[in-house]
């Protein structure tokens, strides 16, 4: 805004000044956003790391070596994989099945159902872990990995159904009609024709749910009690409580190991789908 008011009235120098100012402001913003992350990277490579951001006296992978063992890293990461992979598979399966009738048939309850789903998308369900905890106690589901998977799947389902239906709406129905004429059932047409055609969309939904579940701390923190079942998000928090005050470097190294998979997945999605459009698929009604 200030950019154009400061600029002179002649067309091309004005545009050039605006561009220079825009670039400068954006670079400052980028630095502000990257500055906090510098600590994470530098501390993970520094044996004598503290909360200060400092260039390590010597770069070393000792922190990574120290946490690179089954108890600290592999088991929690495996649990994370189990939880997020499980939640993503359940969500994608349930939402493909649900999206098919919603997308293909005109039914009386389509509209109320989709409004209900939209409403569910908005509920701050992760903020109400207290009643979820007591419900799980009552149903005897506490400390159960499958139950936690189903809960995580259910919380991401509204958004996933919404996205999947939008993706499915863009698959032309004429291809299925050909299959129906050849005698294929609706489920066969879904499996053989629709799902293969919307594979890119489904992988977006899958990765979207996976990244959310992988980063989720509050849900497993409340619902999973045994350390042997806890994912990396929770074990990293216990580690912080126990050794955080002395082993900043290891904490940072652990954090890096835990973050890399989702960063890679995000890069994969944004390369494939063209960055910001990943989100717009979910948001454009």
């Amino acid at each position, binding site marked *: 805004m200030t950019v154009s008011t400061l600029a002179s009235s002649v067309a091309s120098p004005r545009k050039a000044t605006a561009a220079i100012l825009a670039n400068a402001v954006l670079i400052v913003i980028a630095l502000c956003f990257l500055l906090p992350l510098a600590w994470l990277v530098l501390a993970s490579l520094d044996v004598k790391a503290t909360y200060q951001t400092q260039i390590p006296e010597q770069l070393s992978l000792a922190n990574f070596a120290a946490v690179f063992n089954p108890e600290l890293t592999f088991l929690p990461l495996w649990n994370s994989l189990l939880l997020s992979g499980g939640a993503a598979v359940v969500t994608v399966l349930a939402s493909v099945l649900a999206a098919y009738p919603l997308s293909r048939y005109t039914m009386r309850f389509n509209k109320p159902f989709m409004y209900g789903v939209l409403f569910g998308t*908005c509920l701050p369900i992760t903020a109400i872990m207290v009643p979820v905890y007591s419900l799980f106690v009552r149903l005897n589901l506490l400390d159960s990995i499958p139950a936690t998977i189903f809960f995580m799947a259910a919380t991401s*389902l509204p958004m996933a159904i919404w996205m999947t239906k939008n993706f499915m709406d863009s698959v032309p129905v004429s291809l299925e009609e050909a299959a129906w004429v050849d005698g294929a059932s*609706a489920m066969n047409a879904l499996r053989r024709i629709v799902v293969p055609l919307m594979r890119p969309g489904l992988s977006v939904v899958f990765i979207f749910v996976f990244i959310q579940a992988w980063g989720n701390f509050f849900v497993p923190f409340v619902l999973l009690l045994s350390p042997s079942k806890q994912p990396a998000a929770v074990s990293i928090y216990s580690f912080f409580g126990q050794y955080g005050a002395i082993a900043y470097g290891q904490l940072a190294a652990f954090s890096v190991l835990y973050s890399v998979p989702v960063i890679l997945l995000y890069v994969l999605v944004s390369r494939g789908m063209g960055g*910001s459009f990943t989100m717009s698929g979910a948001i454009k009604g």
Partner: protein
Amino acid sequence: MSAETVSRSPRETATGPGPSGSGPRRRPRGRTLTRVLPLAPAVVLLAIFLLGPVIWSFYGSFTDAALTGSSAQDPQWVGLDNYLTLFKDPVFPLSLWLTFVFVVASAIVGQNFLGLGIALLMNRASTVVSAVVGTAVVAAWVLPEIVAAFVAYAYFSEDGTLNQVLAAAGMTGPNWLYSFPMLSIILANAWRGTAFSMMVYRAALNDVPVEVTEAAMIDGADGIKRLTWITIPMIKNSIATNLMLITLQTLSVFTLIWVMTAGGPGNESTTLPIMAFQEAFKFGDIGYGTAIATVMLLIGAAFSLVYIRALRPEKV
């Protein structure tokens, strides 16, 4: 839905005018059943794990359920007791106020305006710079929330990066997390969440046809006029969607605050999710924590209804 279909069909058959009429009448009903069957897994999951906790939240808020002891085994119905305690609790209005401040400052002002600003500037900046900023902003967002929380904790701690920067400029920074807990968590949440708004606005601005802004430019509208009279009205649906989603996301932020300040010092940064968690798991009063959760649900539900009504997506 399927229950309704099932329960109706016998009656329809009974009143059916005869074999010749009941055939075509029953077929569509059976077809509806097979058509809605694929919805079953999703409906069951949503009913148990989404609707279940919501109903349980209302029910549990009327009991004295506790974490341990006899009330844990056999919670008693206590009517409105939890709500009466809640409205007398001096922490509750404070917590409500802090939640409001947190949402307005970090989401509506911070993430929203910063996201919109970055998206607008990106249209003028070079491709390389846009890509670098995009990556930097998204990096904070894509990190797991617990890692982002640790990073923010380190950044704002007394000998952390922020105070190092201030020291380099010749200033002595305070202990941010202790002296300015709200400011710290607001800035941290703006840092973490701006990417979402930025991506929404980038996508929205891409859809604004260039011809419209060019026409306004020829008519002599300057940058600010073009922004307020052309661009903003054209992306107002995205703005509404974005505001709603980030409001609800910020309402449920727990991890960031829990790791950075744990609601402290005292109750100076105790937002509603923190308060509910502490009452339930630190002081062992599940019923009371559930009452706070129910209040949050109602706030969230009210916001969603306003949003859905305002937006009215035509293509449902």
